[in-house]
């Protein structure tokens, strides 16, 4: 599975837009890009997934350039409750077996201040 690189930490203030970029230079053709969020003492929580271009849901947007060697998670107007660790993962879908094992990196620790 492709390795990812993302900033160790980021700081922001309430109401700002936060963009977290992830590098995955060795992404394979059938790999998808998935972001998870984790709060202390909880398991990771799925945020968004995409293959190319832009994906948006009620929580975030995911921007993927044409070469797919990087991706950017965009959180609009963050609040204090968005303080968490954000993981970028890449991997392929297993046919008839569900998603393959997730490979977690160190993640990005986002701190949102008042």
């Amino acid at each position: 599975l492709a390795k990812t690189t993302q900033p160790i930490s980021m700081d922001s203030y309430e109401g700002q837009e936060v963009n977290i970029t992830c590098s995955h230079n060795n992404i394979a053709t059938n790999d998808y890009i998935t972001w998870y969020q984790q709060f202390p003492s909880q398991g990771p929580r799925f945020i968004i997934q995409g293959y190319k271009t832009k994906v948006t849901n009620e929580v975030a947007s995911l921007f993927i350039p044409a070469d797919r060697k990087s991706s950017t998670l965009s959180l609009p107007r963050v609040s204090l409750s968005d303080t968490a660790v954000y993981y970028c993962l890449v991997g392929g879908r297993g046919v008839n077996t569900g998603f393959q094992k997730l490979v977690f990196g160190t993640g990005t620790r986002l701190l949102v201040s008042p």
Partner: protein
Amino acid sequence: EAGVTQFPSHSVIEKGQTVTLRCDPISGHDNLYWYRRVMGKEIKFLLHFVKESKQDESGMPNNRFLAERTGGTYSTLKVQPAELEDSGVYFCASSHPSVDTQYFGPGTRLTVL
């Protein structure tokens, strides 16, 4: 709909003892995964069940760890005998066979003294 549940939430045992962790996946999710994070390290994959069959157990650290999923419903992860380096948080996740999103439980924090 109930999420993935894990029991116990926290377990403290002494080195050499046995501990069994339990995971109840979301109903209808054939795929069940075990992960763990040991102190200061990243979350690591342990194994993957499809129903009652082990699809991938490449992440199991050694033969002191035994995972089972009899009947294809809940799963147990037994550590016998436990060692100090087994301390960490053990996560379980499940996914529907046709949707690749994995849903994680809250984890079991294992402390081996």
